[in-house]
Structure formats: C-alpha cells, structure tokens
C-alpha cells in the first residue's frame, strides 16, 4: 500500500472536517438507536451486570483496533494480530508451567507482542514489502508456531492473580478490561489527534512521498505503528488468556477481521489518510451492542454476521452515496 501513483483526494479542507463530524454523529445515532431497540426488545438488556458482561464482546478487539486504526490511516495494515495473540498466549502458557509470577507472565505476553510487531515492521519498512502480504504470511507463521508447540493440547495452571486481567472488576460492574479500554482510547485519541506524531500518521497516509519530502521519517513512524499493533495484541492476549483461563492454539481465531471491521465501521478510510479514534470507540460499542442485543433475543449467529456485514457495507458505501447525492 505504499504505492504513490493512486489518486489522492484533497482531504484537508474544512468540508472534510464537517463530514467527519457528521459521520461520528451518525454512528453515535446508530449506537443509541440500537441501545433503545435492544432495551425495548429484551427485558434483560437494561441490567448493569448484563451490560457489563456485554463489554467483554468488544474490549479486547477494540484495544487492537486503536493501534490498527493508526496503521490503516498511515496506509498499512496488520492481519497477523489474532495470530500474535495466539503466540503471546502460548508463550505465557509455557512460562506459567514454571510457576513464574503474574508480573513476569504479563511482561512475557507484552514482549512477544512487541517482538512480533517488530518482525512485521522490519519486513515492511526495511525490506519494503507490502504489509498486506507480509502480515498474511506472519498470520500463518505466528499461529503455526503455536500449533507446533501445543498441537491439540492446552496450557492451564495460570496463577490465581492472573485471572484478574480478564475476569476482575475495578469497581462494582466496571471490569478491569473496560477501564483498560477507556484509558487506551484516551491515550490513542490524544496521540492521533493532538501530537506531531499523529499528524505525521495522517500525512503518510495521504501521501507517503510528500511526507518524506516534508521531513517526516516515514519508515520510522511506520515501524513504531507496527510495534504498537504488536504491543496491543500482546495486551489483548493477556486479557483474553486471563478470561479463558487456558491457552489453545486456536485462541482468537478470526479476530483480525473483526478488528478491521471495527476500524472501518469507525470511519477510517481503508485506503489510509483519514479516520478518528472517537469513531473507532463508537464502532466498538455498536458492534458490541448489536451482537449482545441480538444474542439476548437468541438470534442465530449467522443472522448476526449478516447484520454486521450489512452495517459495514452501509457505512463504507455512505460517503460515496453522499458525494453522488451532492453532485
């Protein structure tokens, strides 16, 4: 996706700002509508514990989605995130067999995530390979290692304190995962929208060559973004492993597509150059509320997938329809 010969629209004008704003407003309206529809459709929906349980449907995916949003805005993608989870979880499981402390386990999980991110980063930025190809490869590679290590076995026996990350509550029904999700949302929001680094990310996504000639160290920024995606996958691995209390090589299978769906639903341009963290946050809630609400009504998962798919196509098609209507 580093090719620079494609058509690059002028996206830094003020109508864009307006459109972006109305986009998030639209998404928020959809979220609220789904919330209301759910409350009316199921008597079980408006219950603090149930809503708390529902947040687990999206918190781990959303954590990765924040880093993925930055990466996609910069014109790259990482499809290996779910496999990084598998490898990080496998490493933690292997370490847990030696009675190491909870802190060590977490550090191992994060380090493996970072290492996987660095591996992707080296292949993309130093060897100049397309990220979609590299990460499709590492998607098989990372999970493949987990399958070789574990086969059909599972790692269990995580220390008791380790279960806090995925099953613990900070206050009443507010889970640790939800707090982590909120804190990370703020951090990523600030980084993307308030720092020079964030501006560099947009600049690279709009025109990587132009950004390079403007003095932005394009490869270094991309390197950091891949590291961040790896790190977030490591964090998600800690949470998911803690929640499941066990590791199998199939852990988090297919999650990369849900993460990308969340990012695109949040209004991030899949070709790079535009998007926002608030959009991704709302998209996380929309996806979580839709799956949980339909789950409460015992709607088969197949129908749920259709619903999410329709929502995604609707949102991607929307800006096109918009500009066609304006003409």
């Amino acid at each position, binding site marked *: 996706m580093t090719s620079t010969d494609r058509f690059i629209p002028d996206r830094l004008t003020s109508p864009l700002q307006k459109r972006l704003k109305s986009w998030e407003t639209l998404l928020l309206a959809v979220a609220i509508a789904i919330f209301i529809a759910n409350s009316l459709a199921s008597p*079980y929906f408006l219950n603090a514990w149930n809503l708390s349980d529902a947040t687990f449907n999206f918190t781990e995916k959303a954590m990765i989605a924040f880093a993925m949003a930055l990466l996609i805005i910069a014109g790259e993608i990482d499809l290996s995130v779910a496999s990084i989870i598998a490898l990080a979880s496998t490493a933690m499981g292997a370490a847990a067999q030696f009675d190491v402390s909870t802190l060590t386990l977490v550090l191992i999980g994060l380090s493996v995530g970072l290492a996987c991110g660095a591996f992707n980063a080296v292949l993309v930025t130093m060897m100049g390979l397309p990220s979609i190809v590299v990460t499709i490869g590492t998607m098989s590679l990372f999970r493949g290692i987990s399958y070789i290590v574990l086969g059909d076995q599972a790692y269990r026996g995580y220390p008791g304190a380790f279960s806090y990350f995925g099953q613990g509550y900070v206050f009443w029904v507010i889970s640790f995962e939800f707090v982590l999700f909120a804190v990370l949302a703020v951090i990523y929001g600030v980084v993307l929208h308030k720092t020079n680094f964030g501006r560099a990310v947009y600049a690279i996504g709009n025109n990587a060559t132009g950004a390079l000639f403007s003095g932005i160290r394009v490869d270094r920024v991309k390197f950091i973004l891949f590291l961040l995606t790896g790190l977030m996958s490591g964090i998600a691995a800690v949470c998911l492993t803690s929640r*499941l209390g066990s590791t199998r090589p199939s852990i988090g299978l297919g999650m990369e597509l849900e993460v990308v769906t969340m990012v695109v639903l949040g209004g991030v341009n899949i070709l790079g150059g535009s998007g926002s963290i608030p959009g991704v946050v709302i998209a996380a809630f929309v996806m979580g509320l839709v799956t949980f609400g339909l789950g409460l009504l015992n709607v088969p998962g197949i129908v749920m997938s259709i619903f999410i798919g329709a929502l995604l196509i609707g949102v991607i098609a929307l800006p096109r329809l918009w500009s066609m209507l304006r003409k």
Partner: protein
Amino acid sequence: MSVMKKMLTTVAVATAFVGGAAQAEDMRIALVVKALGIGFFEAAAKGAEEAAAELGGVEIIYTGPTDTTAEGQIEVINSLIAQGVDAIAISANDPDAVAPALKKAMDRGITVISWDSGVAQEGRQMHLNPSSNALIGNMIIKLAADHLPEGGQVAVLSASATATNQNIWIDEMNKVMGNYPGIEVVTTVYGDDLADKSYREAQGLMQSYPDLDAIIAPTSVGIVAAAQAVADAGKIGQINVTGLGLPSEMAGAIESGASQSFAIWNPIDLGYSATMIAHALATGAATAEPGASIPMGRMGSVTLDDTNSGAMADPFVYDASNIEQFKSIF
C-alpha cells in the same frame, strides 16, 4: 439523512421481528452447539424439542456461534446468563476456555451440563457422552477393516486439531490397531469441519498416497466431503470412505458406493437425553454425583462415573440395507 433513517428502520424492524419470539414458559433450557448450520446439531435440536413436548412447560433455546470458536460460545453463554435461563446443555468447542463462563452460570444458579463434546469438570455438573469412546474408536477402524480382508492403507480425515472428541476417538482407535493386522494408518489430516477444506485435504490424501484403500472421517462434515472427493476423482470402489456421518447426508455416497458403511449414534436421541437430564437436574429430581443414575425418558437412564460423566448408547452402523429407512429421519 435518508440513509441513516433507513439504517435505523432496519434495526427497529430486525429487532421487532425477532422480538416476537416465544417468551416466558415454566422452564427454559438452552441447547448450545458448536456452530449453527451443522446437520448433526439440527437433529439434536429436534430431539430436544421432542423431550420438551414430552415434559411440557419447557422452552428450548437452540443456539450457538457461527464458527466453531470458544470465544463465540462464551458470547452465547454470557447472553444466556443475562436471560437467566434455567439450564444450559452445551457441546463445547474447547473444554477449558468455556469453563470460566460456565462456572459463572452455575454461580448464578443455572444448571450446566455438557453433551457430545465435553467441558472441564469444574465448568459443568455432568457430561453426557453419546457412546463410549473405546467403542467408537474400535468401530471406526472396524468399519474400514471389514471391507479390507487383505489389509491395506488407511488415512484419517479429522475435524480440527483441537477437537476433543475426534482426538480421543483416534487415540482409542490406535489402542486397538493390534486387532486389525494388515491395516496401516498412514496419516491424520485436519479439515477443521469445513466442507471445502475437508474436500481439499481428501484430495491431498489421494495424491500423497496413491495406494490408499480407505479414508476414515470421524466427523459428519469430513465424511461427506471425502466421499465427494473420492467420487470426483473417479476412485469409487478403490477407496472406501467411512467413519461417522449423518444418514441423510451420506445416502448418496452409500448409493454410489463411495462409502460402504458408516456409523453414528442417533443425534435425536442425544438432544433428547441431554434435555431430559438438564430438566431432571434443574428441577432437583436428580443430583449429579458419582454413581448417580439419572433418568432420560425413553432412553432409560445414565450412570455417572467418578468424573460425573456417563455414556448414552452404542454407535449404530448404517449401510445399503438400512440407509433408505434412516435418511429421512436425520
């Protein structure tokens, strides 16, 4: 804004449409399966409905994720806990990963049993095996050996590498290999219970082992795909596909000769028995403890072992002589 209106209407219509489904009955029992859209589990749901009708005042919630992941099942379990169902009877995608969620269900007073594919002991009150693993392991190799009096090469096409059932059966099969001299199991491949992947794996087997005599697929998805692959390769009569499958899906393969025979317990009976047990435990009519005998209606009763698991019945062989009779049933 018309698009937004449309989206909102879609949400409202969708929720209103499904919101009309049956509400409060005396008891709600959830039958949670590995994934929806698999013939075996649809048949089990039929059996559960039969049990519900027999018991009266029972609503069956038949549900499961779209793909065979533990994460998907946990989302389903969370929504069932939220609804406060009376009992959950689950066929698990992963015995360990779903255990914390099911433990939470039990903490909130929900009866939890596993059937077909089990859950770790701390995550359920009891487990209902469709048959005994030893008998199944013996049956799948016997089915292949019966048609190979001279001996020959046999390959296994399994579900996913982490599937609890299939791995146990293959283990049991390996234990009794000594009783079938001349039969050589050349390899085990995994089709992940996906029709297209299983088909490709079966094709791969035929290319890698030109002298292959039989494919054993202990999964209802794999056996159909393998039979199709053998038929498409023009190797009917040369390679016999056998294992565990559904009569309705395998009728064509039996007729064409791609499969001589296969076995399965009756999934209708399995769904029926799981529902009967869940009902008995939820009402307090029976307690799940080692040595206990729990009634299963027309299926008699199941006796629990030290791990609180029990076996329902022996597997049953289907071939050209009885396929007509059963193919319309499930």
